[in-house]
């Protein structure tokens, strides 16, 4: 991208500019940048205020809507399970479909337990030892999932050794008179 010239270039406005030029007219209009600078300054202040140097360390799926809550605990980078009414996704890989049978029976989900145990074993092998923080997991659930599905997922996490389960939610901004 070439840098703009510092030479002041007149902005010629109006439908009859060619006529004006041919007649040697003096219709030179200089663009007033003050209002644009004002707008940019406001935009800059707003964006700087909402800027987070940490970045977003969780990936939000388009397929689910997280509920809102007023909690303040910041999310940490952990193994992620995403659950909606059609599929359970572990670490980005779709693991199994949510069927009516899944919502009717049992406590933990065997396929999920196996997958999580594999992940924990892999972590143990790569890191040598596991701390309490390594045994935490983030669960992203869609607002519409039934309690039984959440409970089965959480039971599967516990059975696989993930004793700390964090439910990811969107932070609700509190304004006077209620929350947004």
């Amino acid at each position: 991208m070439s840098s703009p010239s510092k030479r002041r270039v007149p902005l010629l406005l109006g439908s009859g500019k060619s006529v004006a030029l041919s007649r040697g007219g003096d219709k030179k209009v200089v663009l007033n940048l003050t209002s644009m600078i004002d707008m940019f300054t406001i935009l800059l202040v707003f964006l700087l205020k909402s800027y987070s140097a940490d970045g977003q360390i969780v990936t939000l799926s388009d397929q689910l809507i997280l509920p809102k809550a007023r909690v303040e605990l910041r999310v940490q980078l952990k193994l992620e399970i995403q659950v909606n009414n059609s599929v359970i996704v572990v670490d980005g890989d779709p693991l199994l479909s949510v069927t009516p049978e899944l919502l009717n029976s049992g406590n933990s989900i065997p396929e999920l337990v196996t997958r999580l145990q594999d992940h924990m074993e892999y972590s143990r092998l790569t890191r040598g030892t596991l701390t309490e923080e390594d045994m935490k997991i983030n669960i992203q659930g869609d607002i519409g999932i039934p309690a039984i599905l959440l409970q089965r997922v959480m039971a599967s996490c516990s059975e696989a050794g993930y004793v700390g389960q964090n439910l990811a939610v969107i932070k609700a901004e509190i304004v006077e008179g209620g929350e947004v």
Partner: protein
Amino acid sequence: MAKAASGRSRTGKHLPDIDMLPVMNLFCCIIPFLLFSATFLEVVIVEMAQTEGISNAGGGATANLMRSEEDRLQPKIIITEQEMFIGTVSGTAHVSYALQTEINGSMVTTFSWDSLTIKMTEVRDLLTEAYPQIEFHKITILTVEETRYDNIIQAIDIANATGFDQPGLQVAPSASVNSAMAGGGVQ
């Protein structure tokens, strides 16, 4: 100096133009960068409590007894298809009936969360007054299988706001919850 001062007075009406182009260039670089990296939704977490029994590890016997007492006395928010209650060892109290509301074109069940906030504050005050030696943090959300996730999160959020910051989740079939309610108390 005197000449210069008089010179300024002669040219006082002429203001020098400020070259805005570098400022505009800077803004045109910063604003796209900030727009791309902006996060308007902040993701936070709700930590769910672990189920723990009485053990000798850490704390000593008195702490364990306190903990077991807290476990015994911990309140429960009971959510059924029709109603929401708060249950303690003393019995249950009605909080709200289920309300139907439209979200994204479909009717969903919700509850009066303001009522829950009021009741939770009352329960906390009663427990703190009756058992000043115990710090209450745990609470259980006991719900039927069909309860929507956002209702569970709302209940957890209100419990957290009233000081019960270690929520646990129990899901039971509707028949079990209703029979427990018919029994008059939740242990």
